[in-house]
């Protein structure tokens, strides 16, 4: 079966080093999934293109625009996520956080996630541990042990080989998590990843019978 890998990239310029890192990670993950005898498809969500839609969603009481709705559904339907952000003011960029803020709280629960960031200098490298991991822990995502941080030096300087090794290691971890997830339909879901997830708040969610609401007063 083909595993759906979704890439979130929050770079603002074009070309962007964040997108560059995202593409390298996506390629490495595809390779690593193939090495495990499975196929992978990659879908990239350029958050830059959603900037206006995200602002609109935020200022209209959470009503998603069609583009935001589609992106949410794409993320919720993924088998794994690669999340890459530039570092702004010692953290992920505001654009990146805006997208996370419009996700359903259950959207990526249990989903394997690879976190990555870019910055001008290596002094920001702990952003992965201080900002991205806590954020994805909150969403109950399964973040792989290796995060990938790339400073400008890593793209051309003496550290560039190291970056390649980190990318391979992280991609291997993500691929292993995705492939080990098993094939749907063979045995019951242990994690409940398939329940309660969706691209949006739907009324298709199970309703609680009103007698129960009345008896427990809606709790």
């Amino acid at each position, binding site marked *: 079966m083909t595993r759906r890998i979704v890439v979130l990239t929050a770079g603002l310029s074009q070309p962007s080093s964040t997108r560059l890192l995202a593409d390298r990670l996506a390629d490495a993950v595809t390779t690593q999934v193939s090495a495990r005898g499975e196929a992978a498809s990659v879908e990239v969500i350029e958050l830059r293109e959603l900037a206006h839609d995200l602002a609109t969603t935020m200022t209209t009481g959470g*009503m998603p625009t*069609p583009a935001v709705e589609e992106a949410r559904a794409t993320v919720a339907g993924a088998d794994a996520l690669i999340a890459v952000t530039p570092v702004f003011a010692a953290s992920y960029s505001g654009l990146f956080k805006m997208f996370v803020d419009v996700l359903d709280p259950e959207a990526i629960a249990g989903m394997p996630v690879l976190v990555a960031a870019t910055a001008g200098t290596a002094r920001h490298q702990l952003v992965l541990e201080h900002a991205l991991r806590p954020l994805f822990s909150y969403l109950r995502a399964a973040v792989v042990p290796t995060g990938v941080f790339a400073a400008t030096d890593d793209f051309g300087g003496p550290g560039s080989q190291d970056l390649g090794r980190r990318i391979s290691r992280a991609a291997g971890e993500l691929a292993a998590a995705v492939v080990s997830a098993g094939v749907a339909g063979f045995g019951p879901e242990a994690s409940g990843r398939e329940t309660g997830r969706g691209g949006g708040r739907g009324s298709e*969610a199970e*309703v609680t019978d*009103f007698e129960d609401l009345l008896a427990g007063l809606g709790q």
Partner: protein
Amino acid sequence: MQFGIFSVGDVTQDPTTGRTPSEGERISAMSAYALKAEEVGLDVFATGEHHNPPFMTSAPTTHLAWIAAQTQRLQLSTSTTLITTTDPVRIAEDYAFLQHLSGGRVDLMMGRGNTGPVYPWFGKDIRQGLPLAIENYHLLRRLWREEVVDWQGKFRTPLQGFTSTPRPLDGAPPFVWHGSIRSTEIAEQAAYYGDGFFHNNIFWNIEHTAQMVDLYRRRFEHYGHGSKDQAIVGLGGQVFMAGTEAEAKKAFRPYFDVAPVYGHGPSLEGFTRMTPLTVGTPEMVIERTLGFADAVGDYQRQMFLMDHAGLPKDVVLEQIEILGREVVPVLRREFEARRPAHVPSDPPTHASLVADGPGAPHHLVAPAAKVDLRADRTESEHATA
């Protein structure tokens, strides 16, 4: 089918003149809109309830009583009545009194409403919003249907041997709608009691509204009140009209761009695409509104928001005039033409509730059929087999 206008009662600066009306001016303007609604043949006027600026609609029954005295046939409603922070005993008394004053021209729409800080002013906690809506409404039903009530609950002091007065007019409690934008529990509540479900249909796309209405319809049938398509549905909507689309957009855009609820956000064009907002000719409004029934099924009440975002009084009066004279007569004709015979045209009225007699389900506190879930499941298994 009933058509009307509903207002949230915001006091907002007119961005084209920089002038903010006084609360008194807004109150008298809203009163004038209600009278205009009756004059041009609309059926319903509904007022919001808020207890914080920039709104001034804190005393709906006082306002509706004044309007009742000046009108003959206009149905008076709310949009919405705060079932969370208002004591259900007060709601029972206030609206029964209004029912007597107005000769039965009253229905109510329940809502939870409002922002967090408002709750503690009334001794409540917003985290309990849903449980409050559930407990309070159930008590309200009892107060209107049982002569003497002994009651103990979680949120209110107990009642012993309490009789709410005046008793509902002709022994028929007002019909109730439950308004919700996205809380499925409220759709479930409306379905359980066989009450009406109202979607404000302003802040979300019509597909979302259709999902919520469909849930209510399915559960209405589940609780034995009739078939799905007989459930009582109301929708909101928002329009601004002129002779041409360009003219309408030019006039409305300055108000839209800085409106308190969506200003500084989406473009007028974007919001028009994403939501049922229609800015254009009366023909465009007719076409768009008729499309609502394709999305949610044949329904019983259509309300329009006309008077927000600082629009001046004379403009709003003109909009209501166009709505009543040019738009609604066509909508009435077209909606009736497409409606199957077994689907009710109007929501229940005082006259119809009285005619149904004292044994009708409306007079029961909990009119839902006891559902045998196992039988239900077997039936659906047969259906899929």
